[in-house]
């Protein structure tokens, strides 16, 4: 154990719920260097969008991710609405915003539990996930689904809220509001938990800006950056009051605190929306074809800024859709945080950005394998696969 050696984490590893591959050069318990390989979970969704109509794409893009499905859907329909030049009615915008915030609640509660699990605090995991069921039930009541709600559509939202639902939503949010300070208190004071997260994964403010970190990761480094106020959408700022939650701790503890504070802010937003929901239509009719043009649509997903780029060519199918998920923006910061850390801190540092690999994954083009050809036909690809596995103990 005298010299450094390489510890692979992934593509399959208990700390990773989805496949990606880290190569850690470790010296005993210290990480000397960290390297990342993407490309294990590429599904070709962007390309798939080009072959489908805008309506179909809405549901395809929702399935980019199970946790932030609503954020992807919102980003896409917003972009398309911008290209079409239509504006959803106010009630539709408010419900759109409500779905986003409910989703943020479920995602942050999920994340708190995962963070607890990564540092071996399973009780924390069980408690937060039990309470997450409250918001999951609310989401199911509103949309009919626990994940992939299918609520957004070009021109507004697809389901309205009635009085009974609003009462139940208010009750559920009030129950969660009563529970959340306990987690904030626990996360910030339980000695073994604090020992594991305070001072771990330091990301100074300048570095966070330099490495373009997004979402709670950057807000925990004291950066006032939130798309909801910087580039308001779905009724934020001009209608819905909201404040950015930041913390100056720059470590994992600060990320726990920021997320817990954001939860409280989400409850405020939800209650405000439910109490001030305007009457009226929930959507306007959208045309099938989108006029030529291109646009960028930004949404503050739970993990940070989510960007959709859409280029339309005048037909009912997009010419190009490009997704920049928040996790991709957070990878450089993660690698920075991992260098020099303890081996034991790998899981929690990685979990602290709330990575979503299925959102993020890119195809890796290794152009020098076969003479630099970038486009392979099916037969070449098949041959390459057979040869690749020939000497690896797997029968082709």
């Amino acid at each position, binding site marked *: *154990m005298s010299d450094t*050696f390489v*510890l*692979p984490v992934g593509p399959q*590893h*208990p*700390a990773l719920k989805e496949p990606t591959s880290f190569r850690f050069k470790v010296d*005993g*318990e210290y990480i000397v260097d960290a390297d990342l390989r993407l490309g294990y979970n590429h599904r070709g969704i962007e390309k798939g969008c080009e072959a489908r109509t805008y309506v179909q794409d809405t549901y395809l893009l929702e399935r980019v991710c199970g946790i932030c499905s609503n954020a992807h859907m919102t980003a896409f329909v917003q972009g398309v609405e911008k290209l079409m030049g239509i504006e959803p009615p106010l009630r539709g915008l408010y419900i759109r915003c409500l779905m986003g915030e409910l989703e943020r609640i479920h995602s942050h509660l999920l994340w708190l539990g995962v963070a*607890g*699990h*990564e*540092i*071996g*605090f*399973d*009780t*924390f995991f*069980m*408690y937060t996930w*039990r309470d997450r069921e409250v918001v999951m039930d609310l989401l199911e009541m509103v949309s009919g689904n626990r994940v992939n709600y299918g609520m957004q559509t070009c021109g507004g939202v697809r389901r309205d809220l009635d009085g009974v639902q609003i009462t139940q939503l208010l009750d559920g949010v009030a129950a969660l509001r009563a529970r959340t300070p306990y987690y904030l208190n626990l996360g910030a004071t*339980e000695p*073994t*938990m604090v*020992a*594991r997260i305070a001072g771990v994964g330091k990301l100074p403010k300048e570095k966070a800006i330099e490495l373009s970190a997004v979402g709670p990761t950057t807000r925990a480094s004291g950066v006032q950056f939130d798309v909801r106020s910087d580039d308001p959408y779905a009724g934020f700022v001009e209608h819905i009051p909201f404040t950015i939650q930041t913390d100056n701790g720059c470590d994992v503890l600060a990320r726990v605190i920021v997320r817990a504070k954001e939860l409280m802010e989400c409850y405020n937003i939800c209650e405000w929306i439910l109490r001030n929901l305007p009457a009226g239509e929930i959507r306007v009719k959208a045309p099938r074809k989108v006029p030529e043009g291109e646009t960028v649509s930004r949404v503050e997903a739970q993990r940070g800024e989510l960007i959709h780029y859409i280029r339309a060519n005048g037909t009912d199918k997009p010419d190009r859709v490009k997704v920049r998920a928040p996790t991709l923006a957070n990878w450089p910061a993660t690698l920075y945080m991992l260098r020099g850390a*303890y*081996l*034991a*801190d*790998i*899981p929690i540092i990685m979990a602290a950005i709330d990575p979503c690999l299925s959102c993020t994954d890119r195809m890796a083009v290794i152009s020098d394998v076969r003479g630099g050809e970038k486009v392979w036909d099916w037969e070449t690809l098949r041959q390459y696969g057979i040869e690749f596995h020939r000497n690896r103990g797997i029968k082709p």
Partner: protein
Amino acid sequence: MDLFKIALYFLVYPGLLFLFVYSTFVEWVDRKLFARFQNRRGPLYTGAAGLLQPIADFVKLMAKEDIVPDSADKPLFNSVPVLALAAVLASGLLLPVWHFTAGMQSATSFDGDIIVMAYLLSLPTFAYFLAGWSSASMYASIGAVRVLTLLFSYEVPMFLAILSPAVLAGSWRMAVIAEYYQQHPLMLLWNIGAFAVAVVALQAKLERVPFDIPEAETELVGGTFTEYSGRKLALFRLLTDVQMVTGAGFLAALFLGGFPGGLVPGFLWLVVKTLAIVFILAAIKAVTARIRIDQMVSFSWSYLAPLALLQLVVVILVRGYLP
């Protein structure tokens, strides 16, 4: 007749059969308590209230495919689980639960058996190290190194802590120590600090949260046991359960006044006292996060070891000044 009793002692109580059955029961208690602490239900379906779940898990694991890595040190890899299990089963025989030869020394109760007991309870730790080391896997190797680092941090406080009741009772034999405290129950209060240290050290010895550093799932996959599967893994898991029983019994004999009253009352005392210790262990497991290995070392040497030493000083003073 003596031969029959010895066979009974070795095979039934407190030997093989008892240790196997009782350790699965203790695992069930531990799982159930841990689940209730976490707002879960725990095992439910196998047997009444899931009582047979640990046995079902054991049988299932025994039937699974047993894989030995090509590059592993095979003789060592294969023999370690059996040897370690033998060590903890032997430690069960030393528990002062049933002495048909009470009053005189025997092979299972003698002056200095407290040292032998501590030694036998330490052997599995070395087995874990050897298991991880012989696996020739990155995760297992790091786990093995962590096992040893962990050992160096909790073993000294553990040994210092068990000295305290022995010094106060003036004996190195568990049966005599237990008898002393049965006659002077109030003297147990002098050992509370040592008891706390010993319980924490036992938690570390059993590699449970917050000290499950060598097998931290999210960091090291399975730690030292990454490459183990099937029968050998089943033996390792049984070993941990038996170690929990004998470790808890050891502490109960030293710190809680042992198991008085002969066969049946002694058995009941054993169950009550070990379960009380298991309750504490499960509570610690439920309310803490896993600490880092460097934090463990500094915690042991800046809190556990000084506390154990202080306790020893107190006990020596008490022994000197009290009648």
